[in-house]
């Protein structure tokens, strides 16, 4: 296993549509064997003469050794790039860079883990659950979404997890409300030692707060808008407190996507906190710029 990602022409093996999601399997030799849960891949979209220059990033839901290594991603159509992906057909070639980013840190001991995911971001939790199982950990799933269509992999979670609970905002599946509302009770009943979470910022912030309340760590995978996925463009800067206690604008794609929840300055996402390293002096000292 190496830390370096690869860039390979991936061959589309299968593309299935289920509800709001498209599930795509790609033969991407080198990516599968290097992959660790929580990492993602960055795909080029639009073909050779593409007018779309930014990469599209996706969590990997599953890797298999078949055909030299396959990866499975799950996505919904959001804009032009995902629209293009959804129209591909078997044998089409897609440029894949990956696996990218820091994976979820794994517990050394056989502990109980909550795996909380919202919508497509839940994809990142399934390979994690598999690895946790191998280490005799107990993964307990909490899955959420806007409606039943939006909850990803509830069935698979029943197989992969010790327990599964679902919440939807419209109440069409599981309990009605935010999935994080279920977290305190689960932490208590299951005696959870760590929370892994993946989903919108608001969810991750709440998860972090709840976990902190119980004195357990929250490892969260953040989905900041990305453009390269490889660390060269500075699109994905997030205010995060470093080991030195100072706030740094770090790149989510290289230093994340997984962060320890309490390190992320959730309330300042989308800003440059005045006390961040290198923040505009005008803000720090009240000088004129």
């Amino acid at each position, binding site marked *: 296993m190496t830390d370096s990602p690869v860039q390979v022409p991936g061959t589309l093996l299968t593309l299935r549509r289920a509800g709001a999601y498209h599930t795509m399997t790609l033969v991407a030799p080198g990516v599968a064997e290097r992959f660790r849960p929580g990492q993602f891949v960055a795909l*080029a979209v639009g073909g050779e003469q593409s007018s779309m*220059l930014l990469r599209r990033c996706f969590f990997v839901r599953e890797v298999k050794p078949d055909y030299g290594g396959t990866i499975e991603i799950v996505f919904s159509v959001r804009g032009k790039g995902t629209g293009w992906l959804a129209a591909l057909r078997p044998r089409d070639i897609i440029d894949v860079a990956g696996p990218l980013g820091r994976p979820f840190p794994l517990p050394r001991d056989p502990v109980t883990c909550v795996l909380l995911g919202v919508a497509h971001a839940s994809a990142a939790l399934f390979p994690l659950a598999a690895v946790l199982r191998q280490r005799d950990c107990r993964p307990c799933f909490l899955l959420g979404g806007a409606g039943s269509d939006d909850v990803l992999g509830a069935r698979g979670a029943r197989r992969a997890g010790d327990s599964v609970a679902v919440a939807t905002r419209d109440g069409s599946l599981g309990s009605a409300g935010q999935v994080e509302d279920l977290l305190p009770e689960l932490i208590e009943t299951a005696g959870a030692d760590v929370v892994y979470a993946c989903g919108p910022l608001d969810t991750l912030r709440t998860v972090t707060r709840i976990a902190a309340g119980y004195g357990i760590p929250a490892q969260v995978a953040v989905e900041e808008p990305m*453009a*390269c996925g490889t660390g*060269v*463009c*500075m699109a994905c800067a997030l205010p995060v407190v470093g080991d030195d206690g100072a706030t740094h604008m770090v790149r989510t794609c290289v230093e994340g996507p997984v962060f320890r929840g309490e390190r992320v300055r959730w309330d300042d996402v*989308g800003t440059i906190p005045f006390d961040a390293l290198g923040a505009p002096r005008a803000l720090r000292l009240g000088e004129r710029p």
Partner: protein
Amino acid sequence: MSVDLRARLGHAVLPNPIMTAAGCGGAGRELGRFFDVAKLGAFVTPSIAPEPRAGRPAPRLAETPSGVLNSTGLQGPGIDVFLTRDLPWLDQQGARAVVSIAGNSIEDYAEVAARLADAPGVTAVEINTACPNVGDRGLMFAAHPMAAAEVVRAVRAHTRRGVPVLAKLSADVTDVVGVAMACADAGADGLSMINTLHGMVVDTTTLRPRLAGVTGGLSGPAIRPVAVRCVYQVHAALPEVPIVGMGGVRTGLDALELVLAGASAVAVGTANIHDPSASVRILRELETALRERGIARLADAVGLAHKPAGTLIRRIDPNVGVGEPTEQETLQ
């Protein structure tokens, strides 16, 4: 046929003409995971300021047709960390570092240049003149020939003789040749062009500017024709001043286009975002393209588009590969 790819920028001779564009290749390690950065003619760093900079709030990048709009605010570690962390890494790899420098005053630029003067492993210094000048209501230095020239003079004064100073110009001016001439007169050993074009995207969902910085810099293949025009005009006016051409280079033929227009070397920017292996691929493609055209030395191709048709080179149909030159195709 082997192709002599060496590229000369003032006192510096690079083994090949392909480099990264400032701010588009990370500090080096990022692309280093995909290929050996020492393979490139040079590695251009993000623009380094005297102090660390946190940059602009997100969103910082937007996709535009065949382009990218960015407003990163030159996030960077500042010269101290750069000298202790990033520059030594490049040096260890055997990469030739071209250090891009940023500032908001003449003093800023001079300070960074002075700090670089004693650092080992600096192949050239590139001045990012598109920074806002706090002394001139935030107008970029590149907007006025005199302001740009002043920066060049300051940096040249603090840089060792053997280290070429490149002035990086903006195309967002009425007369790019005038700015180029002022910079050359002020002692620039070469000119890099072009920086991003001033642009903006409005989000039709939020009905607000897409970038937190409101406006930003447009780059990518969309702007290549503007880059080619600037390189062509400046090479015509200053044929003896080496140019690092950049703007929208995505393939070896795109790089060749800038060379034909007058560039002695070519930098790859946005393409790295789209394809992390772009720069080594482009180097390979450029070499093939030169070979197919029977051009034995890169230097022979520099500015060839200015010469009458048929000069030196046979015409080829790139779809077909190289044929025997026919009568019409040889020297005329």
